[in-house]
């Protein structure tokens, strides 16, 4: 693997820390996350509720203040520079949220919601932008006669298509997709994911795709990062991580996916005990050790860092090499 030159990278996050609350309730929602996404690719981030995955997306989009660390973008394909501190990082980052009903104005016809990024300021949305909005509607698979409808007159899948059209309208090169299909029926998810992927290829966009669902990540991402309690515990190419998960947490996540299978119940399935600990008082050492069946004394004493001995697939576990021989059935 050759080293990436600056212009190949669309987004680089360096040692990101985001804290919420103060005093006794202060918590580090994101605690030292570094990541890099090559231009035109999708990095999926998976984790349970409370892992900090959405906070990473919010911080990159400038929607929540960064406590420390750097967020670097490459405007116009030039070299990476520190992103401006504004919402949307000076028009370089867009967001697609989980619930399109909350992300769209209920009283605006959908073409106006789509055209809104094209008409900055508060002077309303000029009628001349409707043509552009209708073109974008066609691109996301919606008919032109839907343009005057309100969000309530659309189905969930159609609404999410509208928010995708709006993200495209803004012409931002980097898009944060925060659980964009989690609220949709299984039968509709595949269609919306395929659309997101088409839009990315068509416009050369770069995605950070946040999800708690490994099957969506498997469908859309090139690389995957697994987050647990504010930290990345494993990063690698998505197929490789799914076939050979190294971190015990990744193994448990994959094992927990309910499968439609004619095989008898999976006897070796790895059922994770307990729940994610309180982020205000994370366990010292490895944060996953309280639920890990391989935990040893060293895990409490020494915090594991991402082992970069194999470029491209990194794991933050002291014992991943030993554990790899005992991968549970998935």
């Amino acid at each position: 693997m050759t080293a990436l030159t600056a212009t190949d990278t669309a987004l680089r996050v360096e040692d990101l820390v985001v804290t919420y609350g103060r005093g006794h309730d202060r918590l580090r929602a994101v605690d030292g996350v570094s990541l890099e996404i090559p231009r035109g690719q999708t990095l999926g981030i998976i984790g349970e509720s409370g892992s900090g995955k959405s906070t990473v997306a919010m911080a990159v989009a400038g929607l929540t203040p960064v406590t420390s660390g750097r967020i670097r973008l490459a405007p116009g394909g030039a070299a990476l520079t520190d992103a401006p501190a504004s919402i949307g990082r000076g028009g370089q980052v867009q967001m697609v949220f989980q619930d399109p009903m909350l992300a769209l104005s209920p009283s605006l016809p959908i073409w106006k919601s789509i055209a809104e990024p094209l008409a900055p300021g508060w002077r309303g949305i000029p009628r001349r932008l409707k043509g552009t909005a209708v073109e974008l509607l066609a691109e996301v698979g919606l008919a032109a006669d839907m343009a005057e409808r309100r969000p309530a007159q659309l189905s969930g899948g159609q609404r999410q298509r509208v928010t995708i059209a709006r993200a495209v309208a803004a012409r931002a090169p980097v898009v944060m997709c925060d659980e964009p299909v989690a609220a949709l029926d299984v039968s509709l998810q595949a269609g919306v994911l395929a659309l997101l992927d088409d839009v990315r290829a068509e416009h050369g966009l770069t995605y950070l795709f946040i999800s708690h669902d490994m099957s969506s990540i498997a469908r859309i991402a090139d690389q995957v990062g697994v987050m647990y309690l504010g930290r990345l515990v494993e990063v690698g190419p998505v197929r490789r991580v799914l076939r050979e998960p190294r971190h015990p947490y990744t193994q448990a996540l994959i094992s927990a996916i309910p499968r439609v299978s004619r095989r008898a119940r999976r006897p070796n399935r790895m059922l994770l005990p307990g729940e994610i600990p309180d982020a205000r008082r994370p366990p010292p050492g490895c944060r996953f050790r309280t639920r890990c069946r391989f935990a040893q004394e060293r895990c409490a004493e020494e915090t594991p860092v991402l082992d970069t001995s194999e470029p491209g697939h990194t794991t933050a576990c002291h014992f991943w090499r030993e554990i790899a021989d005992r991968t549970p059935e998935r």
Partner: protein
Amino acid sequence: MPDSGGLLTVADLDVSIGGTPLLSEVAFTVDEGEVVGLVGESGSGKTLTGLTLMGLLPAAASVRGTVTFGGTDLTAAGPEELRRLRGNELSMIFQEPRASLHPARPIGKQIVDVVRAHEDVPKAAARERACDLLAQVGLPSPVRTMAAYTHELSGGMCQRIMIAMALVCGPRLLIADEPTTALDVTIQAQIVTLLRRMAADLGLSVLLISHNLGVVSELCSRVITMYCGQVVNIDRTDALLEQPRHPYPQALLQASDVDVEEGEWTAIDGTPADPATPPHGCRFHPRCPHRTDACEAAVPPLAATASGGLTRCVRHAELTLTGAAP
């Protein structure tokens, strides 16, 4: 069709709300101790069926048909009798457990309320029973949980509490409406295991409402598939996974049968039909890859299949549909 022997028999159930027909000729049975799945997309009528069984429909609803539960016709039961049956004989848990619990009353008091609404027992005895059950559903410190409020608990803990509360009066049927949908996948696996264990330990019948065929295939011995307010297929889970006898459950199977390692995934074409204005004939035909003219002509009856199930597909005998991966 067998009309006796089952704990629950639903026959010719039509439900409309405000004049809009939403369920049409729904019919199925649940046996004593059986765990049955009820699947379909949003709007197919799964939850409405559950609410009808519980007698929890809004005032504007009109119900025709019969729901026989342990010898009693629930559609003819008065409000007093329904109140006695709910909680005692049949109970229901929902997708969002936190929304089902009182935010400003300690958990223990809420469970004791349920016990004492149905049985004349002293408070102390009710508390003890609540505490035992909280331990049974796997809460680490039941005594502390009794004093806790919902905002202090996680979603998974709240769902365990809902399960405890639903089971505290020893019902014979539990209706579980998407009980794991709002939970993280690792917690979902824990709750699925818990439901399986509780059903086996207590000899409980469960009607599991879910859009996730993965969860259903792990828990249920039989699967009822609904589409657009109708039951379109009933089959044993293993028979359904081997060879579906209706294109709709097959499509659902393919949509949930994600080959995670490969990222392969199939969507169902089109959008679900609206039960207020159903398509002519087979309601699934506009989205069905196997449709013929006959499908549009008339609503197919629920017919017996070679696998011993029931299907609303006129072509079930001639089609060989592929099931789930072995």
